[in-house]
């Protein structure tokens, strides 16, 4: 399966989705002008991955900041991941960032996937 690798910018996150090496990560800042457009390839990649997923997947969110339009798309990403067996979310937040911790907790209440919370 092809690797999806997008460099992060000042308003878009870094994306690394690599099935063979077992790396699944969205990190950095997310406040794109058009969040639906930005996340479309991510959602397409996940849909394809779902058909030939690894037995276990640890999907990492390590976001420093995301805007509200991105939060809707992050929920769409999580909903797509929900249908894949062996899925686990690693939700990273900066140790003094209660809002990011709370955001992760709220997402975990909206989907049926195990979340593990970690600080960085």
């Amino acid at each position, binding site marked *: 399966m092809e690797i999806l690798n997008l460099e992060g910018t000042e308003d878009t996150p870094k994306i690394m989705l690599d099935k063979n090496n077992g790396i699944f990560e969205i990190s950095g800042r997310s*406040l794109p002008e058009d969040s639906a457009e930005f996340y479309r390839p991510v959602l397409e990649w996940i849909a394809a991955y779902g058909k030939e997923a690894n037995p276990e997947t640890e999907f990492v969110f390590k976001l420093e*900041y995301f805007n*509200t339009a991105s*939060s*809707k*798309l992050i929920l769409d990403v999580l909903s797509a991941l929900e249908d894949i067996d062996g899925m686990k979310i690693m939700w990273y937040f900066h140790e003094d960032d209660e*809002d990011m911790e709370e955001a992760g907790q*709220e997402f975990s209440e*909206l989907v049926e996937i195990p979340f593990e919370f970690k600080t960085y």
Partner: protein
Amino acid sequence: MNFIYDLHRTMMSENLILVYQGDFTQETTKSILSMAERNLDSSGEESSIKRKVFNVMVEALQNIVKHSDELVDGAITSHAAIFLIGRQATQYTIMSGNPIRKENVAGLKEKLEQINNLDKEGLKELYKSIIKNTTISEKGGAGLGFVDMARKSGTKLEYDFPEMGNDYCFFCLKVYVPREN
């Protein structure tokens, strides 16, 4: 030339650290954010407060980009809006103003009133119910911006709609971010 000095004095007395007036796009949003961030960094502001200010700024700026109505008055069309940040001893004030058509005022007012009537728990529930049911609008919004500003700031949103001629009001918004945790 006095207006230069007058404007300067007003900015000083109102403790404004940044004022931008003009056209708002994603590019200007990024520039304003990076200027404000540098200012907060050099003032040595606590990172949790910086994040909250940044958060409210992004939503306020992207609201203008997405929702400010184009002002058409005879031959003049304008997108001009204004964005300001003030820093007082106990709080930051994030302010914005943009023209909106009069027919859009009632709906906006209702939304803001609903948000201001909710406590912390109520805002959380509203956020969760919107995010579950919303789809991204044509303009690219999720309908969560004001709710998020209220949640992150922990304060009530202040607003006003002074009239601008027959067809428009100037939507003024003021959000306080306390500097103490």
